[in-house]
């Protein structure tokens, strides 16, 4: 693997880390906000559990964000991952000459 390939792998890794950190930030905002709503609900007489609606509504968005952060990949990332697996297995891509 040459410097150019290493730079590409580092860039993809940095992109993935950033995407996951943004999701974790989203998760922390979600938890803090919704916990506050539950506390407000409890302090105001614990009547009808209205806090469930923002938890569920926003939860759908949160799950979608988690899928993007952890499960989906750009086409470039898929190609790089395949190359990493090839390198780990000691194989060369088609057309490669040592």
């Amino acid at each position, binding site marked *: 693997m040459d410097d*150019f390939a290493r*730079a*590409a792998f580092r860039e993809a890794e940095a992109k993935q880390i950033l995407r996951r950190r943004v999701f974790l930030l989203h998760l922390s905002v979600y938890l803090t906000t919704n916990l506050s709503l539950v506390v407000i609900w409890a302090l105001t007489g614990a009547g009808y559990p209205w806090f469930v609606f923002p938890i569920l509504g926003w939860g759908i968005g949160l799950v979608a964000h988690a899928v993007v952060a952890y499960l989906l990949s750009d086409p470039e990332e898929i190609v790089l991952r395949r190359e990493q697996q090839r390198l780990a297995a000691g194989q060369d*891509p*088609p057309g490669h*000459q040592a």
Partner: protein
Amino acid sequence: MSRLFRRGELKAALLDALDVAGPSNGYTIMQTLAEQIGESWQPSPGAVYPALLALEDTGLVRATDRNGSRVYELTAAGRQAAANLHGTLAAVATRARAAPPAPPTLGSVLDDFVAGVAGRNRAVDDESRQAIAAILDGARNNIERLIGKET
């Protein structure tokens, strides 16, 4: 990566660049692209390398290890494809030049100023340092007043 390239255009532009530059390593290919397209697009290994791998997979490009560097060149099929796609790089470059340039920021103006100061590494005595600090303080106040008016 910028959206300057439409679907499949980066690969076509890489074939074009390899046709122009001949066998080259990744950084040279990236430099060829950057020179042709201009400053409005900042190429990165994270975008160019996967495209080169994809071209290798399809048999249009062949990679060879030379002195610890991977050198890419067009195969016969790649030369044929480059001939068919000839002009892609020029078309992207024309589009890039037509796009309005990003407006400069205060930071970029200041960076340009600092980079343009002659004798940046020269040592200064205490008296000169105080005089320079006074000039810069005055400039900062003026700039902040100007920015304050705009916002």
